[in-house]
């Protein structure tokens, strides 16, 4: 573990505030807007050209996103499974090799630190992918266990290839077995003579895959995919984090740190959230013998829920950005819009909203007070919210096996 850290310091070029990913030469060439942003210390594109085009690449054709900055940790050793099963609230003791599971990590108080995916790469060898830096927490959690934990964020180059034609495009790129992958499956294969791992995973709620390889092969992997476009087969487009934000809200995925304060960064006591409060009760298994946060969650389960992160469709066409939420027009304030987008596919304002549940029940009405601007003049309007219990967008092709060709 310490050797990894030293290596990273040597790799870091202090002339650059943000670290380029292994795909940077291609990303930089493709990014016409030069609209950069920071993601976990990396230089990442917010948009490449036009947000609408990137968004529709995901929903209508095929999109490619540089996923390298996502926190990646390699976990193996005799206690690896035991360690992971204690780390997360879901029961992952039976997670088979070449399978992936979506999980959530809590602290001792049962408050959410992060959500994550566990990739069971090969028997006893795991990769944990998180939104935020978690090495510190992983080390603390591993005390007394015979387990090796190594950060490999910089050692693995990854691309998300998502959209209705992603399976067809990847097949043409040379991954013949792509059709065999069911959702959450992992495939180890060769592409143009180098090793890649392909998982049928993603953050878009659509058909999609994630491709993982060593940084040395990053550009070859990129080129293999875009060669399919150059040959004229499919429209394949690079997408930035803005387009991803749109589709992940449509798909109902939460974003720790944006939709709620993560437990390890919260300074004020009322900012932390339990899995139940962020809608992740379905990944909490209280029957599991023990896991971090279990006792607190058992207690919390007995009491009425105080608040929930809700999927809220807000009527009209005005963006409820940072809006306060009320029980009625001008009524009692009951919450806040955390993140929101205009959904070009559903023609609606969609939001993640933090809402108080007085007496443990969902408010019967939720209204947003929206401030919006017309030609530099601010106006205010009210719009009613509608709570969605299911994701705003889900398409059968996300789980169809074998995958659709478009």
């Amino acid at each position: 573990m310490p050797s990894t850290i030293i290596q990273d310091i040597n790799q870091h070029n202090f002339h650059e505030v943000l670290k380029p990913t292994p795909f940077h030469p291609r990303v930089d060439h493709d990014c016409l807007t030069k609209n950069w942003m920071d993601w976990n210390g990396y230089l990442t594109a917010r948009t490449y050209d036009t947000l609408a085009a990137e968004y529709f690449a995901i929903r209508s054709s095929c999109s490619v996103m540089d996923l390298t900055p996502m926190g990646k940790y390699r976990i193996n050793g005799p206690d690896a499974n035991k360690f992971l099963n204690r780390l997360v609230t879901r029961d992952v003791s039976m997670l088979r090799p070449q399978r992936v599971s979506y999980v959530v990590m809590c602290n001792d108080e049962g408050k959410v630190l992060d959500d994550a995916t566990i990739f069971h790469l090969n028997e006893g060898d795991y990769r944990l992918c998180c939104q935020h830096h978690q090495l510190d927490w992983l080390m603390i959690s591993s005390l007394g266990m015979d387990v090796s934990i190594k950060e490999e964020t910089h050692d693995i180059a990854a691309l998300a290839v998502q959209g209705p034609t992603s399976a067809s495009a990847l097949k043409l790129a040379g991954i013949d077995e792509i059709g065999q992958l069911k959702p959450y499956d992992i495939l180890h294969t060769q592409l143009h003579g180098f090793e890649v791992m392909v998982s049928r995973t993603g953050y878009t709620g659509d058909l999609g895959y994630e491709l993982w390889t060593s940084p040395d092969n990053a550009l070859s992997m990129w080129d293999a995919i875009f060669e399919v476009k150059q040959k004229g087969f499919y429209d394949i487009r690079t997408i930035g984090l803005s387009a991803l934000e749109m589709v992940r809200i449509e798909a109902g995925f939460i974003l720790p740190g944006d939709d709620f304060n993560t437990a390890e960064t919260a300074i004020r006591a009322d900012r932390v959230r339990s899995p139940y409060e962020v809608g992740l009760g379905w990944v909490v298994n209280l029957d599991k013998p023990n896991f971090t946060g279990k006792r607190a969650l058992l207690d919390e389960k007995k009491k009425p829920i105080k608040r929930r992160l809700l999927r809220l469709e807000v009527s009209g066409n005005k963006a409820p950005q940072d809006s306060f939420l009320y029980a009625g027009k001008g009524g009692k304030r009951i919450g806040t819009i955390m993140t929101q987008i205009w959904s070009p596919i559903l023609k609606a304002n969609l939001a993640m909203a933090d809402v108080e549940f007085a007496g443990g029940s969902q408010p019967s009405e939720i209204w947003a007070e929206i401030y919006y601007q017309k030609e530099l003049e601010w106006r205010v309007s009210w719009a009613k919210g509608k709570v969605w219990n299911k994701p705003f967008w889900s398409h059968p092709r996300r789980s169809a096996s074998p995958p659709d060709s478009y």
Partner: protein
Amino acid sequence: MNQYDAIVIGAGHNGLTNAAYLAKAGLEVLVVEKNDYIGGAAVSRELHEGWIYSSCSYVCSMMRQAIHRDLNLTKHGLILVPYLGNVAFGDNGETLVGYTDEEANYNALRKISPHDADAMFRLHADLARYAQLIRKTLLRTPPDPTSFRPRDVNELLWFAKQFWGLGEKELYEYIRFFTMSAADYLEDYLENDLIKATMASAGIIGTALGVYSPGSAYILLHHVMGDVDGNIGAWGLARGGMGAISQSLAGALQESGGEIRLNAGVRKILVKKQKAVGVVLENGDELYANIVVSNLDAKRTFTQCMDEDDLPPGIFKKAKNFKIRGSSGKVNIALSGLPKFNGVPNNRYVNRGGQAFVGSLETMERAYDDWKHGCWSKDPFIESVIPSAWDPTVAPPGKHWMSNFVQYCPAELADGPWTPEKRNTFGQIIVDKIERYSPGFRELIVHMEVRTPHEIEAEVGLTEGNIFQGELTIDQLLFNRPFPGYAQYRMPVKNMYMCGSSTHPGGGVSSACGANAAREILMDLRLGNTVPDDDFYDE
């Protein structure tokens, strides 16, 4: 069963929208369609193996997003994907590249005319001001200016308030704008002919007018007032073709219990004691309903589906003289590869947009002259798009489908009736013209379908193949559409309504006509309104 609450004639997008809202209000609704497929002019069919042709309409920008959302059309398969750019071809080989991105567009215009690049901001602000006003009226029933009913008076006051809100100077400008030609209007702003011609082309589409004909400026507005996700003037494709719009509306209709009957052309609308009571189908079947709604154009409805004796005096003549002249054709082409065009940058915006073969203002006016003389244009204006460049569902991988809207093409030729040979000659003119800008184009052609007004009328039923179900000139707009006194979707015979593009706000695949008509019908039946307000209502 042969008794319904309402029968809607024609399963085009407005008929289906109308029926969906009636069904949503609890009515038993039947849509009768003469073809063995639905869609009318918003239709997509596999006309060559592996290729899905949108034979008629090919672009979508006016579809009311409030209806899209309200009828949950996404769930029923509708996805609208925007254009990113376009390219216009001039006579002398020069090209004008346009982008939906404002900055990129400015830089592209500057290459041709720095003056026009700057003037475009003023032009767009003025057009946006006019368009904003009209856009607010789309999902509203036009008031009857001769009526003293409180609703009409209130609505007239609302209109007056919107117009007076422009200010005196702008009001004069606006009235002037309504009567001007597109070319003259643009003269006030622009100097470059190709830029003017490109903008003016929007003023003639679907209309038997030239770029110098008075009234064409308004039509220009009609084509720039649509929007995709709030981007005013943006255009989009329906994924899977324009038929996806009709299919999704049919899905919404059927979900509410509505019924569609195919191969059921209407011979006559049954009228008893000055009340519409049902329809007689081509096969002689009689179907009865409390309400009959025609989604056919006004001319066809009254002159072909009704007895003159059933109508009040004057209506038959008004319908006969309804201005619905055929002026355009359509050439649909399956291609074995993506054509390359001279002088067009190979970039990700332009590759995902339309091609407009405009030539120049003069070329377009000459093209109109040919039409006036009863002949198709020898050097026509063509507006094209290759949807397969960004819709993976309409052609096999690596292959392409190209839609070419052609103007002008008359419904009746001076030298006798249309024949297959004449149609082919017309088609070859289009191929020849594209070949001039895209050498090698001809070799890419796998299959081709040529549609003159004759074919469009025969298949879809639009009189003279007019894409708007009646021209969008000021004499046929708002409370004059289709005829003065009948603009509120109620027809001269009781219990009979119209819901097609012959009614306000006209053509353009907006679903607004069908929705507005449904609102009026539900009001007459004293049922709760199921039609939503437009999103732009309060801006």
